[in-house]
C-alpha cells in the first residue's frame, strides 16, 4: 500500500497521482485529504484507494473501476453519476449521495442528508444509518437500501427501481407514486449476499420494498392546489 500526502495538493493533482499509482498496480492510502473535492473523479483504473480522512463534494463522481474507501465523512454528491466500482464511506455522507448513480455499489455505514439516490438509474446504494427526506426521488432504476430511519417524501415520483427500508414508519413517509410491498425470495437472497459482503449485520427478510406505481403523478393530473373551503372557514386571520 502506497501513501500519498494530499496536504498541499489540489484535487486534480491528487487524482493524477492516484491514477499513476493504480496504473502501476499499487493500492494507495491518501493522508491529509482535508475534505478535498472531486477525489477519484472518473477513475477507470482498477485497484483500491483508501482516504484516511474526510472528503468534500463529488467523491468518486463518474467512478468507473476502482474501489474507494473513505474512512471519515464524505461531502455532498458522493458517487454522483458513478458507472461501476465501489465507493465505501465509513462514516456519514452529505446530501444527494449517489445521485444519478448508473451502476456500481455505494455503501455508507453512517447516515446521509436529503435526497440520496436522486434520479439514480442502476447500481446499489446502501445506507446503513438514517436518510434525510426525499430519498430515492424520481429514481429510474437500481436499488436503494436504507437500514435506519427514513424521512418524508420517500420514493417521491419513482419511475423504476426499488427502495428497501427497515423503518416501520416508512409507509407514513411515502412520497407519491409508490407503495410498500413484500420482498421476493430472490430479493432477500441477493440482499443477504450484499450484507454479508460488506459485513452489515442485517437480515433482509426484515425489510420492506417501496416500489413505483405508474399512475398518480405520472399522469398529467394536477395535485395542487387543493382548495379546502372548510379549512378557510375555520382559519383565524389574526392568529394564523
Amino acid at each position, binding site marked *: 500500500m502506497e501513501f500519498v500526502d494530499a496536504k498541499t495538493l489540489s484535487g486534480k493533482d491528487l487524482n493524477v497521482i492516484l491514477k499513476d499509482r493504480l496504473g502501476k498496480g499499487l493500492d494507495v492510502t491518501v493522508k491529509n485529504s482535508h475534505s478535498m*473535492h*472531486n477525489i477519484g473523479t472518473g477513475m477507470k483504473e482498477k485497484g483500491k484507494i483508501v482516504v484516511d480522512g474526510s472528503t468534500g*463534494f463529488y467523491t468518486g463522481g463518474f467512478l468507473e473501476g476502482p474501489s474507494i474507501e473513505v474512512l471519515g465523512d464524505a461531502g*455532498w454528491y458522493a458517487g454522483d453519476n458513478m*458507472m461501476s466500482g465501489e465507493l465505501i464511506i465509513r462514516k456519514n455522507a452529505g446530501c444527494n449521495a449517489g445521485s444519478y448513480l*448508473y451502476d456500481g455499489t455505494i455503501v455508507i455505514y453512517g447516515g446521509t442528508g436529503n435526497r440520496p439516490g*436522486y434520479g439514480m438509474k442502476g447500481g446499489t446504494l446502501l445506507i446503513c444509518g438514517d436518510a434525510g427526506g426525499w430519498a430515492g426521488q424520481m429514481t429510474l432504476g437500481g436499488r436503494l437500501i436504507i437500514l435506519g430511519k427514513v424521512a418524508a417524501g420517500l420514493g417521491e415520483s419513482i419511475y423504476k427501481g426499488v427502495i428497501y427500508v427497515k423503518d416501520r414508519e416508512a409507509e407514513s413517509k411515502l412520497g407519491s407514486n409508490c407503495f410498500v410491498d413484500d420482498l421476493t425470495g430472490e430479493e432477500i437472497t441477493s440482499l443477504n449476499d450484499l450484507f454479508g459482503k460488506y459485513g452489515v449485520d442485517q437480515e433482509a427478510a426484515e425489510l420492506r420494498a417501496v416500489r413505483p406505481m405508474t399512475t398518480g403523478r405520472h*399522469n398529467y393530473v394536477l395535485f395542487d392546489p387543493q382548495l379546502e373551503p372548510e379549512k378557510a372557514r375555520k382559519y383565524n386571520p389574526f392568529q394564523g
Partner: protein
Amino acid sequence: MSEVIDNTTTKKPARGKDVQRGIWNAQTIAEVRYKAENGKHRIRGCGATRELPTFDDLIILPGQMTRMTIDTYREKCDTRTVLGKRHATKPLVLETPIMIAGMSYGALSREAKIAMAKATAMTGTVISNGEGGLLPEERENSYRQSIQILPSRLGFSRRSLEAADMLEYLVGIGAKPGLSGHLMGAKITEEVAAMRQLPVGIDLHSHPRHGDAFGADDLMVKMDQLRELTNGETPIFIKIAAARVRDDVKIAVKTGVDGIILDGMQGGTGAAPVMASENLGIPTMPALVQAVKTLEEMGVKDEVSLIISGGIRDGADMAKALAIGADAVAIGTGAMVAMGCSVCLNCQAGRCAAGIGTQDPEQRKNLIIDEAAERVANYIRGMTAEAMLLAKAAGKTKLKNLEREDLRSLTLESCAMTGIPLVGSNYTFGTPFGFC
C-alpha cells in the same frame, strides 16, 4: 364602430361574433373553457404566441458614403465561427454561426433527429441532442455534436460526455423557464421509454433541478469535475432562459463556462404549460442586449461565447443578433419548419402528419430523411446567405464584424429596450448601448 352602438340605424346591428371583444378574444375564451372543463392548465407545443418585440424592430444601416460596400455576388464574407475557446482546448469550429438547438428524441421522431444531424454535416455546424439521450444515428451523422447535461439525465451517462464535441449544462429554456421537461404519454413509446429508462406511456414531467449541483458554488466544483472528465478539451456551455439576465450571466461566467446559450421567451418547445410560455421570461432581443452588456462590463466578451436563441427565423434575425454581440444563433422551430412543420401548436399530442413531432410509425414514414436533411441544410445555407448579404451591404467582409453601430431602432420601444438609437433622430431613449 357606430354600426355597433347606433340603434337608430335601419342597418342590421353587428352580431356578437362579428365584434372585436378586446381581451375576450377567441384564444382567451378557449383557455377559460379548457380550465372549466379540465381544472388544470393547458399544455401545448411551440411556445409563446403573443406579440413580443422582435429583431424586426431593428434595421441594419448599409454602407453608402461612409464605408464601402462589399459585392453581394462576387466578394467574400467570412462566416467561419469559433465557439468555446475560453478554457477548452478543443473549441468548436463551425462553417456558419447557426446551431441546431437541443430538441429531444421523444419530442421529435428518430427521422427528424437524423435529418437534422445530416444537415449539420452538409453545412458544417453543430446539433444538440436535447433531453432523453443520444441516438447513435444522430451522432454518426452529425458534423459536431453537443450533449446536454439536464436535471433529469434521462439517457445520460459518462458515455454521453465522451460523445460530445460540446457540452450544455442546462438550467432552463425560454419556452418554460423554471419548469422541467414535459413529454406526454403519446410520445413515450417502447423505444423512447427504453432510452430514458421510463415506463411506457406515462406523462413525463422530468426532474426539476440538478441533483448534483444545487447552486452556483457547487457548480464551480462540478465544472472542475467535468473538465477533468473531458480532459479539458470539450467546450462547456451553460444554457439559460432569459430571466434576470444580468445576474444570471455574471454567475454563469463565474462558474467557469466557456460559453452561454441564452434562450429568449420566444423559444420553441415540444410541450409546455401555456401559462409558462406566455408569461415567464423576457424576449430574446432585450435579453441579448443585457447579456452582451454584462459580458462587456465583466471584461470577458471576447472570451465567453454567446449563442442566442428564441424566435430566430432568418438571416436578418441572425445578422442583427450578431451585430448586437452574439457569436452564434441557435434554431429550433425554424429547422422544424424547414422539414415541413406548420407550427400547429399541437406538438404535445404526438400526432404530426409531417412525421416530425411524432412517434407514430405510420406518421414517421411521411418524413423522408434525406429530403428533410437537404431542406434543413438549404435553410441553413439560405439563412447564412441572407446574413452575408446584409453584412456585405453594411461593408463587412466577416459576419462577425457586424456591430452595434450598424443598427438603428425602428420604434421607441426597441430603442429604449436596446439602447440602439432611433431611426431619423438618432436619439437614444434610455441607456445608450455602446453609443455616445
